[in-house]
């Protein structure tokens, strides 16, 4: 099958579809029919066409298929052929459609004289690209690129090439999603690759963080979890969840273990020690445990963790005696000041059981996976900006003004940068402080590829292609440039860059890269066929092996201490548990009404931030549902209503990330509070990664009370449902 998608895009720019098919306006009796000027080859009026592409809402890189009817994208579904998510998709991924049709999307490039004023003047695309080219040329090595983890893989490669060619510092790939899921700490504890586990045939899983609702690969793990719970012959996996606040994973877990914050790794270490001492799980496992688990006083650890020693023994025994146990690291412990050690302590449990994370696939040459930068690297760039070494800053797919703690100093550093260019399609917090915004095509209108972050034992390169023509192409602004084309156009004016980026447009680049891939699962003898199949099936991956290979981890014994908390216990009596909620993710979802208005699964809250607090603590402090609380940490304070939450430790309050936007469109603006304001910019023991967990806070009532926008009835939810 050979589809000349590119030609389609070129010629059908003006091919508006028949406008009103749905009776939105009851009284509109006589509707005008607008047929295509030139219909796309595949289109039959009234029948849908599906295009395979890659989700751009989370960094996971799920394969999606988009249902297109009469030139409008109407539904995003999981790509059943895609080996990562196998036809399934999470809430965030499905809501991406609203990014495409967001009412506050920019129609074209805009500039503002004074950053932060939000007084934008429209600009013609050609003019904007010229201005940018001038700036970039002038900046030379003073160019810096800051991109998020959802950035298309081809842009990652182009950015890297461009920076290298112009002697600019290497681009920084850092966003809140990566930060709050401790990509950096997890990777550095696991030999540079994010650990992913195959739990389909596991009979027991110990998880140290939410992996079904958030985390690096929620959909992948969702599919796996389904298989884990419904194995052959009625076998059912057992899941124990170690976390201070019950996440949705904790809710489906067979056992929720509310370990004291910062002590999760201690519990893991103690369990490993118990296995060694009690000789659980046979001689081999006990021996390995003896090698890897250092001496600890189990009773003391249990008390420190606020658990019963018996419970730890029981859990350790269950783990050791299970046929295929798996421990999944992540969550808050990975974001503590000893995050790397904590992750390793969890990995020791796996080592005892004889499992390791799935092996990363071999990446074809020329293509690089999107490896997140560490917080230290991001800080280094901020420092450069602060020192005036950065003349032009390009911000793509990230929103550092919103995402970074105040203490990181990004906002102040921006003032020292001559030209700040954002590529955000909606004015977000960073774009508000930019001099110029060149709105990118959303991922549904753009090209690209993406190396899937999860190491599922083989390489998955997901394809990205436009499913609709760029939605905004005004006369006044001219045809829209994709960011890749902007980069290639700018490169044409810089001799060093033109050598590194010789392609006429990004599609030429993509065709070359994809055409050079070895024959994958879909074969194809010539580059053109491979390119067509790559687009048709949603990507490139090798034919499926029988079993994904697990990698063997080299581990040394880890003596892990309780994570240090930030803030004095007597001044700040409560732990703060920050998490990314299922609907809003790290804040990307906040601008989309489907996600704002869909209830959070645990609290059924919509449209707001909230503070989860244990009923006992709430009772002691006289706090009721809906009381506006002032939460203060050593770094700042925010206000949000209380939600009395039965499944959280009494010494902990939990606040979801994602709200508190000052910009980012009408649905996100001035809604809730940004929990990042409570975090500091401290790094962990390695000095590389952000230590975002174990911040201590104090909570006060402000005296105000609101009616919570919740879906449930709080009284009814306490009742039992009788089946």
């Amino acid at each position, binding site marked *: 099958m050979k589809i000349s998608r590119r030609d389609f895009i070129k010629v059908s720019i003006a091919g508006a579809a028949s406008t009103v098919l749905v009776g939105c306006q009851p009284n509109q009796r006589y509707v005008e*029919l607008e047929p295509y000027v030139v219909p796309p080859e595949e289109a039959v009026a*009234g029948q849908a066409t599906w295009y395979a592409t890659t989700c751009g809402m989370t960094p996971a890189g799920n394969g999606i298929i988009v249902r297109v009817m009469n030139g409008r994208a109407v539904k995003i579904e999981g790509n059943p052929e895609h080996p990562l998510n196998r036809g399934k998709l999470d809430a965030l991924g499905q809501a991406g459609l609203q990014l495409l049709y967001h009412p506050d999307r920019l129609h074209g490039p805009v500039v503002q004289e004074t950053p932060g004023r939000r007084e934008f003047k429209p600009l013609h695309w050609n003019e904007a690209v010229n201005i940018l080219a001038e700036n970039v040329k002038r900046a030379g090595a003073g160019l810096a690129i800051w991109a998020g983890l959802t950035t298309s893989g081809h842009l990652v490669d182009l950015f890297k090439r461009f920076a290298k060619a112009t002697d600019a510092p290497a681009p920084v790939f850092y966003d809140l999603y990566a930060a709050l899921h401790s990509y950096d700490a997890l990777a550095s504890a696991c030999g540079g690759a994010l650990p992913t586990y195959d739990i389909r045939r596991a009979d027991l899983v110990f998880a140290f963080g939410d992996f079904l609702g958030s985390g690096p690969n929620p959909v992948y793990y969702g599919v796996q979890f389904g298989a884990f719970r419904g194995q052959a012959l009625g076998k059912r996996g057992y899941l124990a969840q170690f976390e201070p606040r019950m996440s949705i994973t904790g809710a489906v877990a067979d056992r929720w273990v509310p370990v004291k914050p910062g002590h999760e790794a201690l519990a893991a270490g103690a369990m490993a020690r118990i296995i060694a001492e009690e000789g659980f799980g046979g001689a081999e496992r006990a021996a390995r445990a003896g090698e890897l688990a250092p001496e600890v006083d189990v009773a003391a650890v249990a008390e420190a963790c606020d658990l019963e020693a018996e419970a730890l023994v029981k859990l350790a025994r269950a783990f050791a005696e299970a046929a295929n146990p798996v421990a999944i690291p992540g969550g808050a412990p990975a974001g503590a000041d000893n995050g790397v050690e904590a992750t390793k302590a969890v990995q020791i449990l796996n080592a005892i059981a004889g499992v390791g994370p799935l092996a990363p696939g071999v990446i074809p040459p020329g293509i690089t996976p999107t490896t997140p930068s560490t917080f230290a690297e991001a800080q280094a760039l901020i420092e450069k900006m602060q020192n005036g070494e950065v003349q032009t800053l390009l911000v793509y797919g990230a929103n550092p003004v919103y995402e970074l703690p105040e203490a990181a100093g990004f906002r102040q550093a921006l003032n020292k940068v001559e030209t700040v260019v954002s590529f955000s399609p909606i004015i977000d917090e960073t774009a508000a402080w930019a001099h110029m915004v060149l709105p990118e095509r959303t991922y549904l209108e753009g090209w690209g590829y993406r190396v899937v972050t999860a190491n599922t034992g083989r390489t998955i390169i997901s394809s990205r292609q436009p499913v609709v023509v760029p939605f905004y192409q005004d006369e006044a602004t001219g045809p829209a440039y994709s960011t890749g084309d902007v980069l290639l156009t700018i490169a044409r004016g810089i001799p060093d860059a033109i050598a590194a980026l010789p392609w006429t447009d990004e599609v030429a680049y993509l065709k070359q890269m994809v055409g050079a891939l070895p024959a994958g699962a879909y074969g194809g003898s010539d580059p053109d066929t491979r390119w067509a199949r790559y687009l048709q099936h949603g990507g490139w991956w090798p034919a499926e092996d029988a079993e994904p290979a697990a990698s063997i981890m080299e581990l040394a014994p880890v003596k892990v201490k309780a994570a240090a908390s930030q803030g004095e216990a007597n001044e700040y009596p409560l732990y703060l548990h920050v998490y990314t909620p299922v609907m809003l993710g790290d804040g990307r979802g906040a601008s989309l009404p489907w996600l704002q208005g869909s209830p959070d699964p645990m609290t059924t809250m919509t449209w707001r931030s909230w503070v989860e607090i244990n009923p006992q603590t709430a009772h002691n402090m006289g706090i009721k549902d809906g009381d506006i609380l002032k939460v203060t940490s050593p770094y700042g304070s925010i206000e949000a209503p209380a939600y009395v939450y039965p499944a959280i430790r009494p010494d902990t309050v939990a606040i979801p990330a994602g709200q508190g936007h000052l910009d980012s469109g009408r649905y996100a603006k001035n809604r809730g509070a940004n929990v990042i304001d409570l975090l500091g910019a401290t790094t962990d023991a390695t000095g590389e990664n952000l230590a975002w967990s174990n911040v201590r806070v104090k909570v006060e009532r402000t005296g105000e009370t609101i009616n919570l926008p919740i879906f449930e009835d709080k009284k009814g939810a306490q009742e039992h449902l009788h089946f």
Partner: protein
Amino acid sequence: MSRPTRVWITVIGLVVLLVFIGPFIFGVLASVPNYEQPIVEFSHKRHVQNAGIDCLYCHSGATRSPVSGIPSVEKCMGCHEHVLSGEAPIVKLQEYWENGEPISWTRVYQLPRYVHYPHHVHVSAGLNCETCHGNVGEMDIVTPAQIPNMGWCIRCHQGEENAVELMDCLNCHY
């Protein structure tokens, strides 16, 4: 009654009449359908009778899609690039083509709200286009041969063999 009273009564009566009857008349006038097409000279009769073109040539979706479809400008130009290319209406068409503008045809058949009508199923059940659309080949300007309302649908459906299935509300309303 004195004369001024009568005058007043007449005036008030007229105002009341206007207030109550006015919207009604306006409504009737506003709902008089106007089937004038953007290219007024376009004639189905000429295309069907003189040129002998089959309905499905232009409305190709009828056999395979719920929507029969309106031909694209490209399809029109496929013939009119050469056929009658100098004539005034065709020049108009060519203007649309050159500007890359879609032609806003006026809808002739308007289903009521909350109804779905699949063309392909009806065609595959053996219905001719003329059964519902009338003899379009005889019409210069197409006007509805039927008002597509529910009573009209029912009249066919109830006579069929599988009438129970066909009369099910959920067949068309969802």
